């Protein structure tokens, strides 16, 4: 779930809709997929660009906290798995930018908006990865939280987004299992490894809960997005589902969830749990998290340092096209 607090256009009642908007809503309600060249309300297009763009940016920035451990992975096999995982994430970014491009925005435009701060990425990637156990915790918790949102989004109304999600979900569930496998090794390892595992859970638990965004009571954009099937579940529903799934997994590892208020609630058939610190969340979103500046600096530096490289490739492509054209003319 790499899209948080995506601003959606104001909700309209059926009477306020134009006939075109009504027909569009009927298609969505019937479960039809909307394809790129078909008519869609401007608000639908804009909201999707924000959401898919934010998701794509999260995949790209998300390479950094895990990339941080590739050169220090403890075995060759772990190194290979981590490399493959980070490569998958870059691949997800690519599908998602391609999906966004079908809505009439280029990858470069989206990249510029990320770098200028006009577009966001998931708050989770502004937390540091401090020990090898964090590679486990990120896979288990962060990919686990992402899957909660992405599985229902396979049914989203926009065709290219839905198809991207189907591919992404297959890889994400594999990543989550790999993360859990790292946690298992650490939890059954030496006392130092167990300590790292518990510490990783302590640090990533609340930031993972924040990934779902603030409570729906405060989320003004949910209703329209849900009507358009850009959003399938509410933030609170997904957060509850995540907690219910994760608590037994932590118990299996012999690790404790860092929440004294965590209790099984028979009546609701789920756990009661403490809310994350939302003021911390808003600070992270504003750019004041532990790694916001480093993450953005790293991306901007990669982009700026690579300008000559991209320009070289464009120039060559132009020269080659020119030569081909000249050769064709000469042949005629």
């Amino acid at each position, binding site marked *: 779930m790499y899209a948080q607090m995506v601003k959606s256009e104001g909700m309209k009642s059926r009477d306020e809709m134009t006939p075109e908007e009504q027909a569009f809503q009927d298609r969505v309600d019937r479960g039809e997929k909307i394809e790129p060249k078909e008519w869609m309300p401007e608000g639908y297009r804009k909201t999707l660009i924000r959401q898919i763009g934010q998701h794509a940016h999260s995949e*790209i920035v998300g*390479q*950094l906290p895990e*990339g941080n451990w*590739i*050169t*220090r*992975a*403890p*075995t*060759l*096999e*772990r*190194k*290979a*798995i981590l*490399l*493959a995982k*980070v*490569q998958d994430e*870059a*691949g997800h*970014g*690519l599908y998602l*930018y391609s999906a966004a491009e079908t809505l009439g925005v280029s*990858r470069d435009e989206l990249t510029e908006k990320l770098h200028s701060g006009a577009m966001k990425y998931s708050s989770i990637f502004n937390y540091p990865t401090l020990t*090898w156990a964090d590679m486990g915790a990120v896979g288990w918790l962060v990919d686990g939280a992402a899957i909660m949102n992405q599985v229902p989004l396979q049914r989203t109304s926009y065709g290219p987004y839905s198809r991207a999600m189907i591919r992404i979900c297959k890889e994400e569930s594999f990543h989550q299992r790999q993360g859990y496998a*790292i946690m298992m*090794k*650490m939890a059954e*390892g*030496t006392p*130092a*490894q167990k300590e790292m595992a518990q510490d990783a859970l302590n640090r990533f638990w609340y930031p993972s809960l924040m990934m779902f965004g603030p409570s729906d009571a405060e989320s003004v954009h949910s209703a329209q997005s849900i009507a358009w099937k850009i959003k399938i579940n509410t933030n609170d529903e997904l957060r509850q589902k995540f907690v219910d799934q994760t608590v037994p997994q932590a118990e299996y590892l012999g690790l404790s969830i860092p929440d004294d208020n965590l209790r099984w609630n028979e009546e609701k058939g789920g756990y009661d749990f403490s809310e994350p610190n939302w003021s911390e969340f808003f600070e992270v979103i504003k750019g004041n998290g532990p790694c916001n500046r480093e993450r953005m600096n*790293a991306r901007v*530096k*990669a*982009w700026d*340092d*690579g*300008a*000559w*490289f*991209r*320009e*070289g*490739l*464009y*120039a*060559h*492509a132009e*020269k080659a096209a020119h030569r081909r054209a000249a050769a064709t003319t000469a042949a005629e």
Partner: protein
Amino acid sequence: MEKAATGAILNPVEDRFVSDDALAPAFFEWLCRMGDSALVLGHRVSEWCGHAPALEEDIAMANTALDLIGHTQMWLGLAGEVEDKGRDADALAYLRDALQFRNLLLCELPNGDMGVTIMRQFLFDARHYALLMRLTGSVSPRVAEIAAKAVKEASYHLERSSDLVVRLGDGTDESQRRMQAALGQLWPYVDEMFVADAVDEAVAKAGIAPDPSDLKAEWEETVRSVLAEAMLDMPGPAGFAQTGGVIGRHTEHLGYILAEMQFLQRAYPGARW
């Protein structure tokens, strides 16, 4: 340490060379050279992860690094078997110090800009491909088997790095300048790829691997034609060549690579990951 599973050959074919005691010291050294160059270059390439100039490059470089780590697992795994002292690929990768590392110096040089990274890859790939092609016909079935798997990837690496050298060499003035500078910077390290010593002679005599000097003509042909298409000037003879990596005499850079790579294994001896 755990036995590496990825890329490991599950039912190894019979290979009398693997248990040939007389040959073992040279064969082990040679396998470490193969594995260590893949490992150290894979490490360098992986440093780009998330920092490349375009998303496609992030993906391609992670892919290249992944292939090289896979090769490492196979070569060092076989090295451990030949040595027969209970060391597996991970023990060799993580618990030897710089003096025991046998990679080419070229592989450990810092990434520099993308020009240096791509040019280093190209100079390495041209030789790597020529070498692996020959190794597919090795008298050692295990070596031939690893080479057959690795050469498919090395062929793609060479295709990609050649293509980028051409496009950047014949790109803008700046990209050409950077590529030419990278070539000049790396040129003193190329001769090491073709120098033969007693280890190479022993494995060549057994029919396991070609003499490295036999690869030079093919390498030069590849490099010459790609550089010509890239509008880059091929430097003359390197003059004083930088050598020593394959006998454990490295640049200052390798120590830092190993300090980073081996940190967890060194800090938590015996832990399983």
